[in-house]
């Protein structure tokens, strides 16, 4: 009886910490994307094109990571096992 309970507890724990990690990671990376877009706009306004390009790249990469994380998460949920 104790083995199934321990196993169930371990599964719940895994779901819990992966949820926390994934939520924090997606939010932080999205915040980086917003920061990148905001800073890129500021840099363009003061005519610093190189810095604007770097911030845009940061934003695009961050958005790409967010999109990939969401798609990967949905694929994981849809998997049979």
């Amino acid at each position, binding site marked *: 009886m104790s083995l199934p309970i321990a196993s169930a507890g371990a599964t719940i724990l895994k779901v819990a910490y*992966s*949820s926390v990690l994934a*939520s924090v990671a*997606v*939010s932080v990376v*999205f915040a980086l994307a917003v920061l990148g877009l*905001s800073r890129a706009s500021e840099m363009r306004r003061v005519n610093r094109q190189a810095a604007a390009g770097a911030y845009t790249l940061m934003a695009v990469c961050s958005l790409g990571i967010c999109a990939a994380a969401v798609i990967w*998460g949905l694929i994981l949920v849809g998997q049979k096992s």
Partner: protein
Amino acid sequence: MGVDILLVIVVLTALAFDFTNGFHDTANVVATSISTRAMGPRRAIAMASVLNFAGAFISLKVADTVGQGFVDTHAVTTTVIFSGLVGAIAWNLITWYFGLPSSSSHAMIGGLVGAVFAAAGWGAVDGHGVVTKLIVPAIVSPFVAFLAAAIAVLLSYRIIGQARPGSVNRGFRLGQLVSSGLLALSHGTNDAQKTMGVIALALVASGKISAAHFHVPLWVVIAAASAISLGTFSGGWRIIRTLGTRIIAMDPVQGFVAQTASAVVILAASRGGYPLSTTQVVTGGITGAGAGKRLSAVRWGMAGEIVIAWVLTLPCAALMAALVYGIVSLFGSGDAGPLVLSALMLVALAAALLRARPAGRARGALEGEHP
């Protein structure tokens, strides 16, 4: 033939429950988007409705858990399932009428367990399954959403601290279009499946599906997805006000984080086959997003009231279902009891909808903010 009529009643009742589930839980999905003005109510509800439908097709693990994980399938009859559903619907309507967020999922499973207990005793209830697949995840999930949202808000504010508030808010409002969609999708993956599990259980009880080869037929998936989607579209304006503004006043950063944390927790639970309460998870996410910014921003009194409603849901739905089973049994083992109660339930539902008319004013006020 009699059994078939009862099965039809049970399937229709389950779909009616699914509709009330969508109706009741609309707030969970759209409240933060509306509160932060990321979306207008109509658009938010329409999007939630479509994604609820789509989400129901992603996974069937929760349906398997509901169908096989809580009660002995041999002790379940269509009358028992009918009683469980009516008990759950009654509890949903009571909490909806008083504007209290509760858990439709726990009401459904509480109702099922209560009816099985009334019909066959404790021996037919899988205590281990109820504890490990329902009670523990129910207790843990809001705290996980709370913790995830609190940490994420804290870190997000650190990152965007020096940026201009206008562009930050615009960016996170756009992000909320995705996080809100993800939350609606996750709602479909978890909540719609509970009804699928119950209908599949009814099909097992009536001999249409073998217990050894338990599965959810495609028509059940489509019917349950459609019912929850229509329910979501019909909305739940009273509860939107509670979740959207009375717990905390949110900014777009908090809204995005609360929705993301809630969606991730629900999706992870769906992968594990845990039938969570989306209401509890979303409330945990919203409260965590508030606490991550400033502890005093959270209206803890309101959060406390919600916790009381959570605690009451399982036993009250179980009690109501047991009561319903007792009443149905008075009419004998045929179809008369379920037929009489179905008629009474329809009258109660119509009365509740008529009494809900004043809520239209709240809807008008909200829509006025989003032309």
